[in-house]
């Protein structure tokens, strides 16, 4: 197997809120290999977006910080780099696309200008050469008539087209890693399907590693090879996608899948996980899911369960499912 491009080890991120420290992500470890898409799934507030910002070192330093762990890109620890060194990595080694294709493009510049900016910056080529590369990129993301598109402004494009442009910008410097934070959430289903197809084929073509962050297990099922399920700042289960869908181990994953109307097996009501996600900063001694779990025992309330590795691609953070009860 190839070497992992990105190794996240025991990452912890804290939010600082008026002198109190609220852990947002704790003890998160992920290895990402070239040519693979891994999904980071969870509901709002589970820390998935915080993780992506931490990787890019884009956390707001006024109220968040990486308190522990390392993020290694080819053996280089990103958490130790200066802002200046990070700027050389962003866009060149690791790129990111966001949820809102409406607001992530600058309305006052043409698509061409926004595309070539990064190319000139990172590849040190002339404006002319950058334009050739840019047109090439637009072709890659299946945009018809790229020469005309170069002169267009963002407001002239539809949401799907803008997301394609965003992808083109993100991929223009051949990054090794693409982080996609809810890239299709704001799009219609037919457009979403097109964008997912595009991401799939570009990943194979460019042999990048893709980290897909989403709340939608359906989207994950569509393009991911491995999935990391997050709950309250922790990874609770990791698995290959088919294993996860066919045989979810963690009670939270089970609940999440069963709540989906797709999985409805008849009967009067949809399954739902009782209760709500604990507020960030709530002191929980045992398992963070204990309060909502139907299998909760005394042990679950006493000590936090560790993430137990079951086989090469499968881990679960649950005493019961890991058989350590």
């Amino acid at each position, binding site marked *: 197997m190839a070497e992992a491009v990105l190794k996240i080890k025991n990452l912890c991120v804290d939010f600082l809120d008026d002198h109190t420290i609220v852990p947002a992500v704790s003890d998160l470890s992920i290895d990402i290999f070239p040519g693979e898409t891994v999904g980071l799934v969870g509901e709002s507030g589970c820390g998935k977006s915080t993780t992506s910002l931490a990787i890019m070192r884009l956390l707001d330093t006024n109220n968040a910080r990486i308190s522990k762990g390392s993020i290694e890109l080819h053996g280089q620890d990103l958490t130790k780099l200066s802002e200046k060194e990070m700027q050389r990595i962003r866009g060149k080694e690791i790129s990111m696309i966001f949820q809102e294709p409406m607001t992530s493009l600058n309305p006052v510049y043409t698509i061409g200008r926004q595309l070539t900016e990064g190319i000139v910056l990172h590849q040190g080529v002339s404006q002319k050469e950058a334009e050739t590369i840019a047109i090439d990129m637009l072709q890659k993301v299946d945009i018809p008539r790229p020469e005309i598109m170069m002169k267009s402004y963002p407001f002239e494009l539809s949401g799907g087209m803008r997301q394609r442009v965003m992808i083109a910008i993100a991929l223009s410097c051949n990054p090794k890693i693409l982080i996609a934070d809810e890239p299709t959430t704001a799009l219609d289903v037919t457009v979403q*399907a097109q964008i997912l197809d595009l991401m799939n084929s570009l990943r194979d073509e460019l042999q990048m590693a893709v980290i897909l962050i989403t709340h*939608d297990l359906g989207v994950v099922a569509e393009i991911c090879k491995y999935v990391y399920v997050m709950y309250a700042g922790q990874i609770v289960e990791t698995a290959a996608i088919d294993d996860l869908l066919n045989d979810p181990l963690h009670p939270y994953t089970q609940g999440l899948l069963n709540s989906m*109307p797709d999985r409805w097996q008849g009967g009067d009501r*949809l399954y739902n996980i009782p209760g709500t996600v604990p507020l960030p900063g709530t002191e929980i001694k045992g398992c963070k899911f204990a309060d909502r779990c139907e299998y909760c025992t005394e042990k679950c309330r006493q000590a936090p369960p560790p993430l137990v590795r079951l086989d090469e691609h499968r881990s679960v953070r649950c005493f019961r499912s890991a058989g350590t009860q």
Partner: protein
Amino acid sequence: MNIVPFAASAAPGLSKGMETMSEVPILEIRHLKKYFPIYSSGLIFSKQTGAVKAVDDVSFTVTKGETVGIVGESGCGKSTLGKTIMRLTDRTEGQVLFHEKDIATFNREEMQELRKSIQMVFQDPYASLNPRMTIGKTLEEPLLVNHVGSAQERENMVREMLREVGLDPSHYNSYPHEFSGGQRQRIAIARALINKPEVIIADEAVSALDVSVQAQIINLMKDMQKKYHLTYLFISHDLSVIRYISDRIVVMYLGRIMEIADKEDLFTRTIHPYTESLLEAAPQLTRRRQGKLIMNMDIPSASNPPSGCVFHTRCAGARQECETLVPELLDIGCQHCVACHRAKELVR
């Protein structure tokens, strides 16, 4: 012709055990059109240069107690349809009949009654509650403007309703910002229910919620429907949600109805190419999509929709006539209606 004074039929409890009544349409939408004019400014006066056809010649009926799902992508006019039915925005043409009476002809008093009988639940639980009003005040408002009860009675009703939607009545004096998205949506549902309406129009009511919370809210809405014999018009872009909750489904595209059918019928006997690609595109857990999508173009703008069948630009099976002739909504049996020139061939 005023047949059913709906104030009298506004007591939903009456319809219990009156299942035979269910064939009477509670809402009938006839050739409804809603155009938004586009102006371009001249030197002194601006002049109309076009129109966004948000809703274009839409007809269907809703019978009492059923859930009609309206599904479509952004810009298909589903939200505008909801607002036009509620008369939150005035229609351009056509009719909306509530208990067989055109709501456009309603006078002030009748409008006030209508506002009690049809309620709306909106998408964004963060935007649909006034941030400067306590939950108690927010829920009391519908009672207040309809002059229901004394202050004490109103407060009791509000507390009761809070309990019913699964919230602690002690939240009476709390402000919206103290609640999570799911809880806010419960409050919004409580506000819609407090005047005991007949029809609820839910406009993407669960789209902004996390899956597990979404399931809770959908269950709550189902429970309330049973308890109060509500009729739902459930607007959503999410086919899986629509499939779960609806009895009948209306598929819209660029302001027009493409297909209407009973739920099971629509999924087992999909006819319209648009419905088909919608089903195809929706990510599902059970099967992985094979190969590329048939439909590979952006949705055209509603201000400049394609001629003929609005879907012909993205339809793999489009023919000559599709570009010029607007297909009619044809019943192909079992109240399964399709607007497609090839409907007859596709039925087989």
